[in-house]
């Protein structure tokens, strides 16, 4: 028979040992994990402008093609500019690459509900590829089961979509998870986020297909995923909410 004392001691030792193993593993593995996350972020950014990078050359290609990182407030003010070529700040001291979208979006939500005062800033990447300039905007929103995210690149008219990438944490395979496939993402290039007089329209993910929209709106819509309604709506909302933060900046910087 086991005495109560034995049971308590056993449980305590077991829990302490397991906790020690887990925290040791977490501490040791953290640098590797962070490097993976960082490399993936770079690969995603590059993929949205159709540059395929692998784990080894990601950093190198990033420094080659992404010339500037900017941090922008939703009011259109540029807080910080970081030149990747010379690795120096032209303005401010926040490295836009290190901005955590999740934190900034929750700051923004807090301001809207009147609870927070800290102002959010959002990153914008300027890419120079084949002598053309592209602007890459990171996205983050909610899917059905968890967060979804992505990057959208715009041509130098700040209006036409050049490419997109989407990722998700745990959307349903075969349904919502289809947003991460080429088939879904290939609908975006060529769509526009502004109408001809530069009123912000975003790109909408339309249930039933973009073809059901009036013909002048079709340029702002893509087909939703059948069976993935909530994820599709999440993508729509994410595009609208994230892109609208850049509208004041874009309007102020349009080539007249």
């Amino acid at each position, binding site marked *: 028979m*086991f005495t109560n004392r034995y049971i308590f001691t056993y449980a305590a030792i*077991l829990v302490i040992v397991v906790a020690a193993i887990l925290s040791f593993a977490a501490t040791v593995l953290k640098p*590797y994990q962070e490097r993976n996350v960082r490399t993936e972020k770079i690969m995603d950014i590059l993929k949205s402008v159709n540059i395929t990078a692998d784990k080894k050359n990601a950093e190198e290609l990033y420094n080659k093609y992404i010339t500037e990182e900017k941090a922008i407030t939703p009011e259109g003010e540029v807080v910080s500019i970081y030149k990747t070529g010379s690795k120096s700040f032209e303005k401010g001291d926040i490295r836009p690459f290190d901005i955590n979208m999740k934190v900034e979006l929750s700051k923004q939500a807090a301001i809207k509900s009147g609870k927070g005062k800290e102002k959010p800033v959002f990153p914008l990447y300027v890419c120079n590829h084949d002598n053309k300039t592209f602007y890459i905007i990171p996205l983050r929103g909610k899917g059905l089961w968890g967060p979804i995210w992505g990057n959208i690149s715009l041509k130098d008219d700040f209006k036409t979509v050049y490419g997109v990438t989407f990722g998700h944490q745990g959307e349903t*395979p*075969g349904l919502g998870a289809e947003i991460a496939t080429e088939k879904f993402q290939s609908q975006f290039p060529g769509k526009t986020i502004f109408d001809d007089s530069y009123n912000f329209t975003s790109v909408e993910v339309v249930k039933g297909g973009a073809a059901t929209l009036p013909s002048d709106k079709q340029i702002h819509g893509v087909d939703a995923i059948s*069976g993935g309604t909530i994820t599709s709506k999440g993508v729509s909302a994410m595009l609208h909410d994230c892109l609208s933060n850049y509208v004041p900046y874009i309007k102020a910087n349009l080539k007249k």
Partner: protein
Amino acid sequence: MSEEVKQKEPLFSAKNKKLIFNPMNKENPITVQVLGICSALAVTAKLEPAIVMSISVMAVLALANVIISVMRNTIPPRIRIIVQLVVIAALVILVDQVLKAFAYDVSKQLSVFVGLIITNCILMGRLEAFAMGNKPWPSFLDGIGNAAGYGIILVIIAFFRELLGSGTIFNYPVMEKLGLYSIGYKNNGMMILPPMALITVGIIIWVQRSKNKELIEEK
């Protein structure tokens, strides 16, 4: 509950072989014991996650079985379930952390399924029924066998769901290449949804029982 295995026998004796192969057929965790159904519904819309899930369950179940089997004589019966749970949870977190560090792509594939492993009743079932009463080596084989039995069913279900639901196999567009779409064939969207997984499990159980009369319960 537990089937005692005699000591001092060759590594792959007839008894030990049974430990591996029985769960694949007449003691199958899904179709006969009807355990682990929830994850069988959740991860079988495509083949790839189904296979990744099976491999992870195999790793965790085999390790957990060995660890519990080594500790079995020291575990106070009154808190044995908690001890088993702690071991499984710790292993799952460890596997997740290691994958995130060294196999990031696989870890992204697994994402939420890692959490599902903890709730998989097959794990608790095997620890309680087998590892608590047997030596480490048979327990290891039992873990491998049961995870394989679970995996086979998962892969069969995923094969049909992916083929009929999305018209692909490992994301390769089979139906399109066969030219079925041009003669009016359409994917069955219902196959992607969990209810059809349950019906597929039902069909597998039916087929298995009609072939193996031993499995049919007396009225």
